[in-house]
């Protein structure tokens, strides 16, 4: 009788304890509010990962297909677009190239547009895609290399593939005024192509020759300034390329490393531009010919207007890519493939603000 009483008492206690526990349910989180410094890190592992750079906490993942080099970001609509390739049997089968649209809140695909199966893959490159727009149209451009070069044009509003523009001799896409885009050409010129809203070519002009592909090629990894694009050559000439009334304007701004022989610009994403302070950031290393993809050991701060180097930041580990947030309390990011990490620095104070590790080999860095 006593033991029955004891068991009954224990059961009552257990039931009481259970009723006091909050009911836990499974589910999933959403990114309802993006942190101020949200960094989108493309990787070699077909994943793009999002981090809060202030806390170094991971926010989520966008899983992509082959050749998703970078994203076109539309913060107002809360979406991103990327060009990617899918094979029906993983490494074989039917190839389909698409522009996929992902919802930033869920990091999930919400639509896709089939494009010509000519999108290049390989080492990541920021400027295989770009968006041009005017008051009524928004066109996404995808560079094709088969190795013949052309550009696929997609209307993001009607979500249709409009056209393929042959661009023999010139490649990549650098969005310019309204529905026009710049390209670089092997003959040492830039090319400006203007489209109409149907994706048809209206005009095409080339600049004068301003670099020599054989002796000092123009690197294809510029940063966008307010006026246009800031390019550099392998040897350190810095050009600003702008457009005005359908014409291309090239201006040699300055030479980097003239007073420090042997320092070169290099890496996968070696140039960034901080618009609020008009500061050009260059990933630099010591090396000679053929070192244009070597990781950088320093980031040089350069006043774009004067060409003056105002600071040289020594990186804790060599980096392949740099990026900078576009706010007053900006953060400078430096991604290292070999160390599988992104270093974070306060742009103004140059003090380290932490490191993001175990990423999956970071490539192109983007602000979100």
């Amino acid at each position, binding site marked *: 009788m006593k033991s029955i009483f004891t068991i009954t008492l224990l059961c009552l206690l257990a039931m009481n304890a259970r009723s006091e526990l909050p009911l836990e349910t499974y589910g999933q989180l959403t990114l309802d509010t993006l942190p101020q410094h949200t960094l989108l890190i493309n990787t070699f592992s077909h994943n793009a990962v999002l981090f809060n750079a202030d806390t170094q906490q991971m926010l989520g993942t966008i899983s992509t297909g082959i050749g998703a080099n970078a994203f076109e970001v539309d913060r107002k609509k809360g979406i991103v677009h990327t060009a990617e390739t899918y094979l029906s049997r*993983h490494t074989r089968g039917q190839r389909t190239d698409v522009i996929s649209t992902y919802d930033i809140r869920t990091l999930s695909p919400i639509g896709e547009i089939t494009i010509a199966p000519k999108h290049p893959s*390989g*080492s990541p490159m920021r400027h295989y895609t770009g968006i041009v727009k005017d008051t009524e149209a928004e066109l996404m451009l995808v560079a094709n290399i088969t*190795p013949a070069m052309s550009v696929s044009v997609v209307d993001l509003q009607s979500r249709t593939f409009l056209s393929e523009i042959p661009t*023999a*001799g010139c*490649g990549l896409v650098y969005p310019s005024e309204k529905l026009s885009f710049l390209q*670089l050409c092997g003959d040492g010129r830039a090319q400006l192509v203007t489209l109409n809203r149907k994706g048809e070519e209206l005009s095409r002009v080339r600049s004068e020759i301003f670099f020599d592909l054989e002796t000092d090629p123009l690197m294809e990894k510029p940063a966008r300034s307010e006026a246009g694009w800031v390019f550099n050559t392998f040897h350190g000439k810095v050009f600003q390329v702008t457009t005005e009334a359908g014409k291309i304007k090239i201006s040699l701004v300055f030479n980097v490393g003239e007073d420090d022989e042997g320092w070169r610009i290099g890496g996968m994403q070696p140039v960034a531009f901080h618009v609020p302070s008009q500061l050009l950031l260059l990933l630099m290393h010591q090396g000679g010919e*053929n070192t244009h*993809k070597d990781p950088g050991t320093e980031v040089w701060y350069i006043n774009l207007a004067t060409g003056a180097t105002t600071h040289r930041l020594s990186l804790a580990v060599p980096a392949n890519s740099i990026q900078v947030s576009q706010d007053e309390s900006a953060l400078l990011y430096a991604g290292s493939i070999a160390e599988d990490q992104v270093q974070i620095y306060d742009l103004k104070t140059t003090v380290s603000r932490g490191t993001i590790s175990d990423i999956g080999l970071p490539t192109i860095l983007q602000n979100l």
Partner: protein
Amino acid sequence: MKPDALIQIVDKWVTARTVKSARQLSRRHFLSRFGKLMVGISLVPVLPVARAAETRLQLPEIGDPQDCDYWRYCAIDGYLCSCCGGSESKCPPGAEPSPVTWIGTCENPADGKRYIISYNDCCGKGECGRCFCNRNEGDKPAYYPPKNNDINWCVGTKTNAYHCSTAVVVGVDES
């Protein structure tokens, strides 16, 4: 004329034409011609350039093809097929060689000559992941594809899945 002598003459002619074309023709023109040449290599193995690739043993060789410092790899960017079940000039079993490719020019330390190297990617399997090697001698930006090693050159193949890269000697640079 002995067959060998004839082959040598044809060899020199083809090499000279290739180098001259690479220098003088427009990118598109060169690409068109070189692309046909590369397709030709895969289809007609008796062509002189193919013969040069086949007769590796006649080349004086120094170095380890599984080492990134091996002389032929001066402009390579990818996984070395010699570490993946293939060799410096052959794809691993089941991997399809790309008929279209980028080219470099590397100095062979064994004889001091510069050779034209065709960096054919091998395709149709997942990335090998072994012996990654990136050297950029003469590499040009991606807007000039014939001399760019960033691009996945698995084009003209059944699929564009990249597996590894080879370095095939296709001629002597006599410039």
